[in-house]
């Protein structure tokens, strides 16, 4: 049987890498911050999971998907910026979760609990992490082009609506996976910080995107080692590790 530490390590590596890579795309589309509200949307699901003793991942994913679908439909209908719509939808989620969340279990839902990672969680993290990575790799350039000009992308034959949906689904999956490690409050950090740091290091798209993936993995490993050494919560330590890498990256910033 794997030790708890090895399970945790594998889990954070795959989620950290996939989140960093996905976050690099979100940053270019000025959508990085929606990872936060989506994490908050996961809270009612996580609360239900804790109450009824099922895996937090499924609870989180359930409420995120419902929220994301509402956001997607509203975007088509209203043409309002997606960030505004996300903000609109997530507030209801947060309010709802604070109504049903037992105070004794609030911490696990809010900042995650790595010691509760099971073999199933690790398998999910590995499989879904790889799937999201491959999907995002495939649509990356098309999404970037549609970020530069949606009209241009459409003329080049990119089905912008379809790709937006795939992209949002990937975000939902990754955020739901993250809830177990960093909780519903900190999901945005695993998406934004590695990409922001990588943006300071690299000036081409490939350096930037794979840099974000690498920084996501490195900070996950670093954070977990600090957790092992200090006994503080792993989630916040992972986030602080990536923040530290971001600070180092400022020295390299060329633009």
């Amino acid at each position, binding site marked *: 049987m794997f030790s708890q530490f090895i399970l945790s390590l594998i889990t954070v590596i795959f989620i950290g890498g996939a989140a960093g890579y996905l976050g690099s795309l979100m940053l*270019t589309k*000025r959508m990085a911050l929606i990872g936060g509200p989506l994490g908050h949307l996961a809270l009612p699901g996580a609360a239900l999971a804790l109450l009824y003793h099922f895996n937090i991942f499924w609870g989180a994913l359930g409420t995120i998907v419902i929220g994301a679908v509402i956001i997607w439909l509203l975007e088509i209908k209203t043409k309002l910026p997606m960030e505004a719509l996300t903000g609109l939808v997530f507030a209801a989620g947060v309010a709802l979760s604070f109504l049903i969340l037992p105070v004794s279990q609030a911490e696990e839902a809010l900042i995650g609990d790595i010691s509760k990672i099971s073999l199933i969680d690790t398998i999910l993290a590995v499989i879904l992490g790889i799937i999201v990575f491959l999907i995002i790799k495939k649509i990356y*350039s*098309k999404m*970037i*082009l549609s*970020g*530069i*000009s949606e*009209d*241009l992308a*459409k*003329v*080049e034959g990119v089905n912008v609506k379809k790709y937006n949906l795939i992209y949002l689904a990937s975000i939902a999956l990754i955020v739901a996976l993250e809830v177990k490690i960093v909780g519903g409050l900190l999901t945005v950090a695993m998406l934004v910080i590695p990409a922001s740091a990588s*943006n300071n290091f*690299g*000036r*081409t*798209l*490939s*350096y*930037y995107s794979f840099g974000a993936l690498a920084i996501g993995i490195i900070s996950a490993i670093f954070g977990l080692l600090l957790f092992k050494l200090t006994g503080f919560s792993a989630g916040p330590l992972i986030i602080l590790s990536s923040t530290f890498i971001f600070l180092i990256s400022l020295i390299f910033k060329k*633009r």
Partner: protein
Amino acid sequence: MPENSILKVKNLNVELDDEKIIENLSFKVKEREIFTILGPNGAGKTTLFRALLGLISYQGEISWTSPESLKIGYLPERLSRSKFKEIPISVKEFFKFKESSDEKILRMLKLVGLENPKILEKDPGNLSSGQFQRMLIGWSLIGNPQVLFFDEPTAGIDIGGEETIYSLLHKFWEERNLTILLITHDLNIVYKYSTNVLCLNKKAICSGLPKEILTPENLEKLYGTEIKFYEHTH
């Protein structure tokens, strides 16, 4: 010049936010034309382009001959350098969206006057406005399109740069089997290069050869104010 029309538009109507932008517009574009759309701000020129490109919904008929094999190059209005500054991307990576061969990318950049191979690694957001516009023109031309849609390709470029860009476009037009649809405000350019002009202000105000229709009367009708245009005879 072959007389086959490549595009037929019949009774086109476009409404955006319950406002009629284009009303009962009909025209034809022949193969190998430089077809200019002239009109004041808000006349519906860009909207017309977007309808022709299938980017917005419309009523009426837009028919291309052989739409399945039609390759289009598009240079949208207001594609700004600042958009590129937000994304860490090199010129080469921007061209890779359309063309995988480095050699072809370099050849195209040379054709549009960006000779230094170092340009490949540069950030499009850091090019000068003239270089940036040349790069965009190269991007729209790569992959041998048959039809080009250029929406004010020289907006924000000084007079000298504008002239170079248009003579460059004209050179491409002469060398390749290209049909160009062009939106511009520059009457000199229209006069010098266009083979056909459509004056648009929601409806078609006038259309025909530039020499025949660029009269003070027509321009006043189109812009609602007196326009002094001096025809240059060389």
